[in-house]
């Protein structure tokens, strides 16, 4: 790999880190603007001025905001996310299990949906404007247009209640056998797949169709390549940048946007964890989860950027 690429990648990563720092400032500032402080939310109704003062001193709330910010940031960088107010448990420990569950579900949903979406997109281009194309697009768009809870309930009704093939609740736990786990996440993964499918599929189709207008595609066709070979060898590699972008966006959604699906299927992931703590005003947990979600988003965007750069010679060699 040439050095300009490395330089570009380094640039992107540096930018990402800067962005993450900016987000952390925003999250911290946002929780400072909220009325009341942590000491008040811990003590609640039973707060007396005296106990408030004690607790504030103990938690270091009397320090200026920037000192507290750096303490918090320092803690996070060393893996110490603090303790939850509501249960007194270490946040890092309780999040790690949840995060792993969320990633597990997102991974399998992605493993099914990305190849499926790209494959269907290629197929749609091959038979563009024919009935295959229309059927694929129609079904995918329909599944995206329904709200995810509706698809979720629909799948539960048929697969869990009527035919009893898959469980309707996806409780997973440590030490669960792999196949049981897979069976448990079958329905939520299917819902997520249906929700993200159309976006990626349509984008693949549009990006490739765009390239298909080019002169070199005509040349490829004229030299006698089959339609599918033209797409595979000439169109797809040139359309990959926008496809990577949309895939990464959807991956981010699979990780940070699954609250509704987690609630419907009772899946113990990050979304459910966040909602519980928001309703309890558990600020340290909300901060930590917010930062993790932001990090996931930014990382995936960096990956998308880098992917696009590597895939596109014009970006690789900027003038």
């Amino acid at each position, binding site marked *: 790999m040439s050095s300009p690429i490395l330089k570009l990648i380094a640039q992107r990563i540096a930018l990402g880190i800067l962005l993450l720092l900016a987000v952390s400032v925003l999250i911290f500032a946002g929780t400072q603007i909220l009325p009341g402080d942590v000491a008040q939310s811990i003590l609640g*109704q*039973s707060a007396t001025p005296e106990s408030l003062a004690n607790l504030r001193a103990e938690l270091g709330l009397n320090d200026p905001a920037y000192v507290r910010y750096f303490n918090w940031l320092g803690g996070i960088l060393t893996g110490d996310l603090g303790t*939850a107010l*509501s*249960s*007194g448990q270490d946040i890092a420990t*309780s999040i790690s299990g*949840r995060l792993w569950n969320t990633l597990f579900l997102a991974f399998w949903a992605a493993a099914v949906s990305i190849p499926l979406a790209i494959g269907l997109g290629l197929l749609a281009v091959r038979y563009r404007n024919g009935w295959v194309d229309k059927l694929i697009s129609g079904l995918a768009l329909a599944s995206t247009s329904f709200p995810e809870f509706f698809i979720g*309930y629909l799948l*539960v*009704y048929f697969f*869990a*209640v009527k035919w*009893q093939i898959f*469980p*309707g*609740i996806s*409780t997973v*736990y440590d030490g669960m056998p792999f196949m049981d786990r897979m069976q448990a996440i079958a329905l939520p993964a299917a819902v997520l797949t249906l929700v993200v499918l159309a976006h990626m599929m349509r984008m693949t189709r549009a990006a490739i169709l765009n390239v298909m207008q080019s002169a070199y595609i005509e040349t490829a066709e004229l030299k006698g390549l089959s339609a599918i070979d033209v797409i595979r060898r000439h169109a797809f590699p040139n359309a990959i940048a926008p496809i990577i972008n949309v895939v990464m966006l959807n991956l981010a959604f699979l990780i940070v946007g699954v609250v509704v699906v987690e*609630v*419907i*299927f*009772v899946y*113990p992931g990050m979304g*459910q*964890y966040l909602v*519980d*703590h928001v*309703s*309890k005003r*558990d600020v340290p947990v909300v901060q930590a989860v917010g930062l993790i979600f932001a990090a996931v988003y930014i990382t995936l965007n960096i990956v998308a950027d880098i992917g696009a750069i590597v895939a596109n010679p014009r970006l690789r060699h900027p003038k």
Partner: protein
Amino acid sequence: MSNELDFLSRRVAQGRLSRREFLGRATALGVSATFANSLLAGAARAEGPVKGGILKAGLVGGESTNSLDPALFMTQVPFAFGKMWGEMIVELSPEGDLEPRIAEEIGSSDDAKVWTLKIRDGIEFHNGKTVTPEDVVATLERHSDENSKSGALGYMKGIESLKASGREVVITLKEPNADLPYLLSDYHLVVQPNGGKDGADAGIGAGPYKIAVNEPGVRHGGERFANYWQGDKMGHADQVEIIVINDATARTAALQGGQVNMINRVEPKIVDLIKRLPGVTIRNHSGPGHYVFIAHCNTAPFDNNDLRMALKLAMDREEMVDKILRGYGTVGNDFPINSAYPLFSDDIEQRTFDPEKAAFHYKKSGHDGTVLLRTSDVAFPGAVDAAQLYQQSCAKAGIKVEVKREPGDGYWSEVWNKQPFCTSYWGGRSTQDQMYSTAYLSTADWNDTRFLRPDFDKMVIAARAELDNEKRKALYRDMAVIVRDEGGLILPMFNDFIDATGDGVGGWVDDPHQELMNGYALAKCWLEA
């Protein structure tokens, strides 16, 4: 025919005939499925519990923030799980009597100030230690400590001193209280080794199940405790499991799909649909919980009793029970007590919807303009609809009510107990004294109708110390009438608990105190063979 049915149902209970075959034959005999099912349940009870299997419940009311410390129990899942692994000092039986548990006898001095509990021999904690009077004292100490966060602190504050001597625990109260044994049945008062002072959330109790899994907000599991002192009455299934399912539709689907054997909080809206599902039995029963419209008696315009009376008379209670509870409840009479409580007087005249009388009182109050009622989805299921129905029935009496819908987030901190007129709910308490002390004493933090009546306060204290049940009952009747006629409480309905069980769950007994057989459903029910 009935002989044949009896015979058949016994065969099922003995496991010689399948349930389906039985239902088929019963239907052939011209018996409705519901009746046949109830026959079967009766036969199974007579046949006795079946040991073994895994009994699972899918419950709403669990969060990832739940703790195993009994002092912090608040929602349904910790409540029900607590009854699995914990043992109580005393408990309320389904019939409403006191049931001795760890305390085998309870006695008091004549003035109801000094109470003596005799602690039962041979009850064992899950860590192998024996339950001693010292453990009981330490438990009560922890919950009565001023700095404790215990949900029972409100009542436990009344304890002056605690002492263990021999096999007895002596409790001395600051004020006489004839209800002490009932207060000791509070679900927070799970007896722990050394009162939980060495680790409040260690999860070690003396209940029928040992904690095997504890993942707050996800699932809780228990394994049968071999040395449980009452193994013939509780702990029939080998394992019990609570799966937290906060979504109502998912809960129903899990029951239907057979993933759980019982669920709590079936929504009245869908009860009739669920009832029709094969194998599912709705277990509804009345309880002390009620839905309320509350006005502050000390805030204009509600400081005028004529206006309050007008608002009470303008409530169409029958309609509320029909439309909001779909019939799963009973009409209220503007005082917070019903037959779920001991010493309830059923001869107080029922208030009914009377627009003319309401209009008369409204005119007399001299109030002009609209009355602002705040409500929210979280106040109780259907609270917004109920407020609108109320608006309609008030209009018939010429009272203009403006309904303001508040966000659910913050309703309990910003609206309830702050704004002068809003909708809310109460889960009820186990005794009348507890209910009145929590929400109708002048000094109560949760006096959400701002009912400030020194004469009423005196009656509460007097009734508390009265050991003669006839006199107490008369006092409680007078108190009820005062709240009904002069309070700020409009109580249109008492809501039923609505649980549901799936196929093959035996041993269910309706319990009016709390949902899921007062939390004991998993411990007392069994899976029919």
